[in-house]
């Protein structure tokens, strides 16, 4: 019976092949780093604002900017770019491995077919 993929289905929480498991793992890692950076930074800023007296937060200067301006306005976009680069490098390597596997499969598969004929 020809496997057209219909019996398997796609579910991000139940990846069925090793390749997809790898892809989902890196997606989960990047998303976790994305979420922790956004929520974590804002929680930290909120905590400092509410628990430190006066305008202490505005007076911590980093790269010429108040800490919260630097963290949200400069660092987070840079962090997102970095996450994108890491994800792409991993995906490029992941797909190269898969592609190499496909060539091997095709070569073997073709040879088997020729033998059967």
């Amino acid at each position: 019976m020809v496997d057209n993929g219909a019996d398997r289905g796609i579910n991000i929480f139940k990846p069925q092949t090793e390749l997809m498991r790898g892809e989902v793992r890196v997606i989960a890692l990047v998303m976790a780093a994305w979420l922790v950076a956004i929520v974590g930074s804002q929680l930290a800023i909120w905590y400092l604002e509410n628990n430190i007296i006066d305008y202490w937060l505005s007076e911590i200067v980093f790269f010429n900017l108040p800490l919260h301006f630097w963290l949200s306005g400069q660092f987070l976009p840079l962090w997102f770019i970095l996450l994108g680069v890491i994800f792409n490098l991993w995906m490029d390597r992941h797909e190269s491995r898969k592609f190499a596997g496909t060539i091997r499969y095709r070569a073997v598969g073709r040879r088997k077919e020729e033998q059967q004929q």
Partner: protein
Amino acid sequence: MTSTSIQLVPLLMVVALFTLFIVGGMGSKMRQTSDYGFSGNYSGRLGSGAAIASNWMSAASFLGLAGLFYLKGYYAMAFVIGWTGGYVLLLVLLATQIRRFGKFTAPDFVGFRYESEAARTVAALISIGISVIYCVAQFRGVALLVSWLFGIGYQAAVVTGGALVVTFVVISGTLGVVRNQRLQYFVLIVAFVLPLMFLVRKLGYFWVLPQFGYGQAIIDLQNQFGFYWSEPFATISLFHWLALCFTLMFGTAGLPHVLSRFYMAPSIRDARWGVVWGLFFISLIYWSAPAYGVLGRLYDARAGFAFRTPDPMSADAVTLTAALQGGIPVWVVGLLVAGGLAAAFYAISGLLQSGAAAFAYDLYPRLFRSTAADCDKLAMAKGFFLVLAALVIALSLRPVGMIAEIAAVAFALAGNTIFPAFLMGIWWSRTNAAGVLSGMLLGVLISFSSPLLGGLFPVVNTLFPLTSSAFLGAPLVIVVMIVVSLATRPPSSELVGFLTRNVHDLGER
């Protein structure tokens, strides 16, 4: 910021910039056009990135963000994070698979993936809605700039701006101009950053990287005027700030004209790297935009109004106001205005064309004339473009809010509807037509629940604010999609096979 006469030099700069774009588009060697209203010219990863960034740049980036910083300080950081962080979602969850899917528009994707003409129709209507709301935000920016350029009132500027946009699209179409997006991006970023360098240099700050140099203005506001630049969560709760931020991210990953970029990338790797380059180019704008807002405050303080709350209706023009108050050469101000107008014009023309295409190719043949030939559809697209333009002009005559906040409503609608439809369509093959239809309709209801139901049920205003509804709305829509899909018939085995083989490229196990 008012003027009573025509600003001749800036006007000449505007004409020169548009001429450059038109000539640059005509001289383009690589031509890529599409009946769907998306056209472009780029090659490689850098080119894809420039195309994504130039497609993204609009009045909201050029004017709206700085206006919000000027008015509300740190609150506006939600937009910076939302409009950049959304690209991470796009990259890791959608870009590769959308490129493999091979459908040109959001309604096309929804119709094919969910095997449903009804779902396609709803997606087309939502896409048109998003285009109209987003265009209203753009028109506010156009009106502010045109009003200053020609020395006319706001409403006259809306009509004049509308006439100029339509004329621009007709001329571009007649001459067969293709958007030279790489050229466009690099000109626009110079038009945005160069005036900032002039301003920061004139103030004696570190002008080489004004994205950091403007920090001295914050310190000066504190030390010289006793003005502390907005405590982060003084005017908004942490929940609402995060709700706005995540709504903008979900919306970024659900805007039809953004998603359509990935179908056009030359390869899957180009699609992915294009997103990262695009994010870098977009970040250059957002690293710079807060500076205009902060400098606007500094100039106010120097004029003796350190603690005056700016007028929300004029705050959107702070990019221009700051440039004028800073006393930089008039040609630099002209460059800034020309860049802002070009960003808004291209955003409007792209959105109106994609809205018109959604009507002509997705709705018209299905709802009105099933035998429509391609030439009929093209004629309908042109006609509906004019109808949409007239509608947007009419809606823009009365200012309803700030540019970035109006844009945020469009993002919320996209985040509540198109984003869940794409996310579930790609990552859970069991999602079916009934699921996506109920999800998208619920998404529309959630998006407008605050003005519709907020009076009766005040809790709705807290949970689903108009500009921030997708934070809780999108997860709710996804839950409904799952429940309804499980309760109804699964998609066909052909479609599941297509998803497995073609979209996720899993091949044989």
